[in-house]
């Protein structure tokens, strides 16, 4: 019997399912960042708001990368539903802690995907995911740097304002 599945699909079906789950997670991440941006805007933390608007956009790009990858390789990508987005935050510090936790969860999910790829010998998808592993490392570093600012500058009114102005710098790479 011909291997029609292999002829039509370059990736493993179980991996395709996990990638579709990952699309949902990235979409949820994007919506969560939008909620954070909105909170920052309402609390006059405009630099942090811009940061999170950009994060929301990046997460959507991640989602689209996976979406196209599935379809380009013969699979079926499913447009995700997003629900249960939290809009209620106590402080900017809580927002960045939540953002870091979110990125850690995404990293874990990507690593789980890579593990599955190795298990089923889907080397194509494993190679595709290398970019995400690198990207997640950078995302975690960025959020960690933001939290370090809170340790250094405190959260009184003036400290918070100065901290907000430094948020754009957390993306800058340290000189080697």
């Amino acid at each position, binding site marked *: 019997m011909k291997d*029609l599945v292999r002829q039509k699909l370059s990736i493993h079906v179980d991996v395709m399912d996990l990638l579709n789950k990952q699309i949902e997670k990235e979409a949820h991440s994007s919506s969560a960042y939008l909620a954070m941006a909105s909170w920052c805007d309402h609390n006059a933390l405009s630099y942090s708001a811009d940061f999170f608007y950009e994060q929301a956009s990046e997460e959507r790009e991640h989602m689209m990368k996976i979406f196209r990858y599935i379809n380009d390789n*013969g699979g079926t990508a499913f447009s995700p539903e997003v629900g249960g987005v939290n809009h209620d935050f106590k402080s900017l510090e809580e927002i960045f802690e939540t953002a870091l936790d979110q990125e850690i969860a995404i990293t874990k999910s990507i690593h789980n995907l890579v593990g599955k790829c190795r298990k089923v010998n889907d080397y194509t998808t494993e190679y595709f995911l290398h970019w995400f592993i690198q990207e997640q490392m950078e995302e975690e570093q960025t959020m960690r740097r933001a939290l370090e600012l809170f340790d250094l500058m405190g959260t009184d009114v003036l400290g918070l304002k100065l901290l907000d102005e430094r948020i754009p710098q957390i993306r800058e790479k340290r000189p080697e």
Partner: protein
Amino acid sequence: MKVLHQSQFFTSYQCDKQRCFFIEFPHKTVKLGFCQLLAFRQQVREIDLEAHFNGQNTHGMEMLMLCNRQHFFVLNTLESIDLKEFVTGTFAMLELNSLLTASV
């Protein structure tokens, strides 16, 4: 045409010549391309069997539309249970075929 998997109510076939699949339902046989098979699989995966028993799905029916809405099926609880097992079995056989083909 080769039988992939057979359950109580359904049978799946692979046709090498036309490079497609056939699924035999109780009253109808449907031809599917691979993408349509994947879409079918996703619909079946989304069937919530628990809802048939916890009162949420009081009529105990599931509706399936296949192949760009060309085919419409209404399934009862027993058929839905069997369908889930059938789809899992079909894809297990396809994977087994891939492993065997790769090892030759």
